[in-house]
């Protein structure tokens, strides 16, 4: 590399603060700010127990949002994730209640595999409708959102589907409530899912293709990238992430209903956008997404602990956050 030093006109430039991409840093700055505010509001807030609780509760949205980062980075959108959670969870519990396998451990493993397969299949369906059917992802997944929700309501006959075997429940409980070396399992799962996702997005050919497709489909096509395949796989990844979230959700309550996961799609998209991923596609930020999911949960937690604002306003606050995040993102883009 250093053979031709005359042409290498790159004098060793010092990295200045200008080089830092503010959009990548902004969500983490916001997180720190929230932590400080929280500490001021209530001294219990900053305690390890409370923060670990918050992180654990953010697990569902965080994991779903990691999948949404792929879909959004590739320039699409998936509105069906909330319904998909309910649908996959229902089928999983129904399968466990069917008693098809006698051995509880084996049953549990089979049920988990089933959930992952169904999640992937739901994602594949979304992807194929969008790409093969050439339907706007907004409309396509609005449709499947209704379908998954409707099927869940039908399966549960409008009520709840509850895991009946107490033996299975006991066996499965630690998946959500357990600890490994003092760290709650859901937090470990978040970190694992995010690390894998970050690796795929930043260090594999597929990840680069996702960014290219989201940045410009035409450029991707003229670069010999199989655009439809890349988009479809992103939807499948979203489905798999939903399935992982379900694997954590089912042991928590051991039950699901027609109202499970309502508005989770909004929260997942908010987490992605707050995390710095552009909604129009292109740059995806997986760790930012996790940060975004954590911010959403923290805001709720601070509201609970503070007594200033009614916790019934959480939805309104979260709605405001997505708008503010978009405004901040845009103002930072202009500056750079």
């Amino acid at each position, binding site marked *: 590399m250093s053979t031709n030093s005359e042409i290498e006109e790159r004098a060793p430039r010092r990295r200045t603060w200008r080089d830092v991409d503010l959009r990548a840093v902004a969500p983490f700055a916001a997180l720190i700010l929230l932590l400080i505010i929280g500490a001021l509001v209530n001294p219990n807030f900053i305690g390890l127990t409370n923060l670990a609780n918050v992180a654990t509760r953010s697990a569902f949205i965080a994991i779903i949002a990691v999948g949404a980062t792929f879909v959004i980075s590739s320039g699409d959108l998936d509105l069906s994730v909330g319904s998909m959670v309910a649908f996959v969870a229902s089928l999983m519990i129904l399968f466990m209640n069917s008693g098809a396998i006698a051995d509880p451990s084996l049953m549990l493993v089979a049920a988990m595999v089933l959930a992952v397969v169904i999640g992937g299949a739901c994602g594949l369906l979304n992807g194929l409708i969008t790409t093969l059917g050439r339907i706007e992802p907004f409309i396509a997944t609005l449709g499947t959102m209704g379908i998954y929700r409707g099927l869940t309501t039908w399966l549960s006959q409008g009520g709840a589907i509850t895991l009946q075997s107490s033996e299975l429940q006991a066996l499965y409980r630690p998946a959500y409530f357990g600890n490994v070396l003092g760290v709650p399992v859901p937090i470990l799962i978040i970190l694992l899912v995010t690390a894998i996702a970050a690796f795929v997005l930043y260090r594999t050919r597929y990840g680069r293709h996702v960014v290219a497709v989201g940045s410009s489909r035409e450029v991707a*096509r003229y670069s010999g990238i199989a655009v439809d395949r890349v988009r479809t796989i992103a939807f499948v990844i979203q489905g798999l992430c939903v399935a992982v979230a379900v694997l954590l959700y089912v042991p928590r309550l051991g039950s699901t209903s027609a109202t499970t996961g309502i508005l989770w799609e909004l929260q997942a998209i908010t987490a992605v956008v707050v995390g710095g991923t552009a909604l129009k596609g292109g740059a995806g930020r997986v760790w930012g997404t996790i940060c975004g999911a954590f911010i959403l949960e923290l805001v709720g937690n601070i509201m609970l602990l503070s007594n200033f604002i009614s916790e019934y306003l959480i939805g309104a606050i979260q709605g405001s956050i997505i708008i503010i995040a978009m405004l901040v993102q845009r103002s930072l883009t202009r500056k750079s």
Partner: protein
Amino acid sequence: MANDGAIASVPVLAAERISKTFGEVQVLFSVDMDILPGEVHALVGENGAGKSTFIKILSGFQPPSSGRMLLDGEPVTLPANSTAEALGIILIHQEFNLAEHLTVTESLFLGREIARFGVLDRKVMRAETRRVLDVLGSRIDENALISSLAVADKQMVEIAKAISRDARVIFMDEPTAVLSREEAGVLFDQVRKLKAKGTSFVFVSHKLDEVMEISDRVTVLRDGQWIKTAPTSMLDGEAIAQLMVGRELSSLYPTKHEPDVDEEVVLSVRGLTTGYVQDASFELRKGEVLGFSGLIGSGRSELMEAIAGLRPRLSGEVFLHGEPLVAGDFREANRRGLAYMTKDRKGVGLLLDEGMTTNLTLQSLGQHLTHGYLDPASEAKAMARARRRFDIRVRDDRVRVGRMSGGNQQKLLLAKVMETEPQVIIIDEPTRGIDVGTKQQIYHFIAALAREGRSIIVVSSEMPEVIGLCTRVAVMREGHLVGMLEGEEISEQMIMRYAAGLRRKAAG
């Protein structure tokens, strides 16, 4: 400033010691320019010389960092956000600012619609649009949708828009880049008519023959510095090119190497037909540079995209190294060593929001995989290599590609395509919108690639380019391959005869 004394009138618009700095980078250094009433003033310079920035400042789209502007001899601060249009100073952008789904009339009155009691007065607006179009001698229908117009007509709408706003100075940034010769001729006729009525034009162009044809005075910028302003009659194309580059231009075109007649045929196209292209057949030999000439819209790009598999073909066959190539599979063509370099580098060639490396390796990521994951060090190496080989000059490695000059973008696009190590390279408009110096470089790259034994098809609307580079030239007209010229036959007159339909023969 170079007032040659003969013209005594006060400049409509003058810039004095204009400097402009973006962040830490200074792009204009104390530049002067004056625009007289009723003159066509050409602004020329290499890519990155600061022309675009300068006219954006002159037309009020950007404020200067220092220096002042004079309007009719009075100091003036041009209002920001294009409201300078109210003063009669109008910039026609390189990429038109027209909404595709509006009609011509709606476009003309966009933002200043005429209304009566809050209701649009379509009749009055249509009549006024017709009047302006008639002044221009244009036959565009005032009710036509913008999306239905040809590029040249869109340009005409932009000019009509300028006139309807009583323009005093019209800035045009490379107005002919997307026009054919005939269309450019029509444009110039309009410019002359308006000039006679006292409208001034500032005309940025890379086509020096056009500068010679249309302009009264020329101002040359180089590296953000004012170099010279002189009456066009005192210069010739060669002199302007030298002022732009700042050095003698050695031969613009490299020497040609004709491949042996018994050299292997690497690409063979037989009876290829698409929606527009009819029954095209030709062969390409190893080490050959084959030109494709013809008017804009003659089907050259469509043919090339069909060969590469980016467009479906209705019938016909393509053989690469003797083996048939499946229709519509660009990836397969890529794998087998056929590359297509688009003419639309901004639209489909490069990811403008990404950095250089992402773009460079996008088509060839397979080379940078270690155990299945991407190796940034390997990509960085490829980038350093490409920068040396194609002389890509940027101030900052991490610059977004959209911010690079056209010439550097074009070199990067060529580098990206070459990363796939193709044996057959189709280059569509290799030098669109780039300056003389970079053009020369790209010509030499193409010649060097051919000497390495690669085969190249050059599709170009610039005849000198095809003539200077290619050992054979195919001419297309209205979807048909109408002629194949070799050796002495290759001349502008011959190409024109075929392209215009005066001659035709079976393609060889």
